[in-house]
């Protein structure tokens, strides 16, 4: 009886599902560890840029600081304002954090390694879906619900203003971001993120480094990406000086730290997507890996992580350098500059691709 049931189970499928679970668990934990250490890295790098040390008291070089911060946040009182909507107030941080964590499911951080048997291979992603970028963009825009609902549920006019700003900002910049990504999609002829990276490896020149069209799309994507993550200079939703922390004014303890996590994980996501779309993913910046076949399966993820680290440093660098934009300037930049520029760039790319329909870029 039991033997018959066991015979029905397709062990290969079970293995694949189990592997996906394990990978998802590992990636979520890695992302949260990156978040923890990004907080301390950010404080230290910003400190150095401002001629001070940053945290250096907890543990060697302040490396245990995130643990101390985590304990502090977990032990803090969870305050829900008496006039707030308790359900929405509780769900909002989750709505912000969960989309941030699940975007990484489609991001390929390395090339697949064949494992002998046909059909069996080790993959450096959880899911390789054909609508990869579409999925990432859709989930990324879900994150704004968490912020808007947090602002609304707090029953605080400043929080509400922060939430409204977040929604307006994200909707404005998503357009330009999507159009910039669409330029890459046009050039690659696919939305599958794995395939996009493979094409850049085959040609040896990443899309973001292609003259003019690639450069413009890359620049627009980066600016819009910073705006999407609500980082300085686009941190208007939380504008400390104007709104008193904006949408998370009324949050404390662990729920507040979930917003914090979402912000940092989103930074990783935006960096990862920018690397996949524009900087050749796990390939070196120019050209492909030379030498031992199969080596790229190991070197690739390392290179990918290095690229992410560079992007994270740039996020910190920009935060230290640039002041916050005025709100009307932010909207002007989004609607009157980035959006038309992305649109023109997309049209020009489309014409170019239509005139030379060989499937690949004529410059290369």
């Amino acid at each position: 009886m039991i033997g018959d049931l066991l015979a029905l189970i397709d062990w290969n499928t079970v293995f694949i599902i189990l592997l996906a679970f394990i990978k998802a668990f590992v990636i979520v934990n890695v992302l949260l560890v990156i978040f923890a250490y990004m907080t301390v890295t950010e404080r230290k790098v910003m400190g150095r840029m401002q001629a001070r040390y940053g945290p250096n008291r907890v543990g060697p070089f302040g490396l245990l600081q995130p643990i101390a911060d985590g304990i502090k946040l977990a032990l803090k009182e969870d305050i829900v304002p008496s006039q707030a909507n308790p359900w929405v107030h509780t769900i909002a941080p989750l709505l912000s954090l969960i989309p941030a964590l699940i975007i990484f499911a489609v991001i390929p951080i390395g090339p697949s390694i064949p494992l002998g048997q046909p059909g069996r291979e080790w993959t450096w992603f959880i899911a390789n879906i054909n609508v990869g970028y579409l999925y990432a963009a859709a989930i990324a825009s879900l994150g704004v619900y968490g912020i808007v609902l947090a602002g609304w549920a707090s029953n605080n006019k400043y929080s509400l203003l922060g939430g409204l700003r977040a929604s307006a900002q994200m909707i404005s910049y998503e357009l330009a971001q999507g159009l910039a990504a669409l330029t890459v999609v046009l050039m690659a002829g696919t939305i599958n993120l794995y395939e996009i990276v493979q094409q850049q490896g085959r040609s040896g020149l990443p899309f973001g480094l292609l003259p003019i069209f690639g450069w413009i799309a890359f620049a627009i994507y980066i600016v819009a990406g910073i705006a999407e993550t609500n980082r300085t200079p686009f941190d208007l939703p939380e504008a400390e000086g104007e709104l008193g922390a904006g949408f998370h004014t009324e949050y404390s303890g662990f729920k507040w730290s979930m917003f914090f996590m979402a912000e940092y994980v989103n930074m990783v996501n935006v960096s990862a997507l920018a690397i996949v779309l524009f900087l050749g993913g796990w390939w070196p910046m120019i050209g492909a890996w030379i030498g031992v076949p199969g080596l790229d399966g190991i070197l690739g993820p390392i290179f990918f992580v290095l690229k992410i680290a560079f992007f994270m440093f740039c996020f910190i660098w920009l935060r230290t350098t640039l002041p916050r934009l005025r709100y009307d300037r932010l909207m002007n930049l989004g609607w009157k500059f980035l959006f038309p520029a992305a649109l023109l760039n997309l049209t020009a790319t489309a014409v170019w691709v239509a005139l030379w329909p060989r499937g690949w870029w004529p410059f290369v």
Partner: protein
Amino acid sequence: MAYVELKSPPPPKGLAGTIGADLGAIARGLAVTLRHMGQKPVTLQYPEERPTLPPRHRGRHELERHENGLEKCVGCELCALACPAKAIFVEGAENPPEAPVSIGERYAKTYIVNMIRCIFCGFCVEACPTEALQLKRVFELADYSRQSMIYTKEMLLAPAPKKEPEDSWLPG
């Protein structure tokens, strides 16, 4: 030496000029922050590293003595009068001739400085006619109770110089 250049650049012309000027400004800003990353932080790692305070730093009060060990303070209460925060209380008394405390006719029987009230302005030092009161370079004055912030005469008085009988003209 860093200085601020007051000359502003000419206004950019056209869209390309505006974009170029903006990108140039951002690049200059990024260069400044990156350059500062290389310099040594100015932070003093305080409990391990000690600050070098200037000699005339206004810290904790001290009541000075003459070389012979007698107190300079004559209990005139001018410091208490000068104090804008009313942090000083002095009670003078006749200086007993058989066992003099100060060199004057009077001495400070009670001398109290309330360190919670004190604003370290140094007016008491300026008011002192005998240069008995000094503000020293002691700055770690934090404590846990209000009572411990009331500094009495015993706490404020400079340590007595070691008595050497042969060259001392002290009575007794």
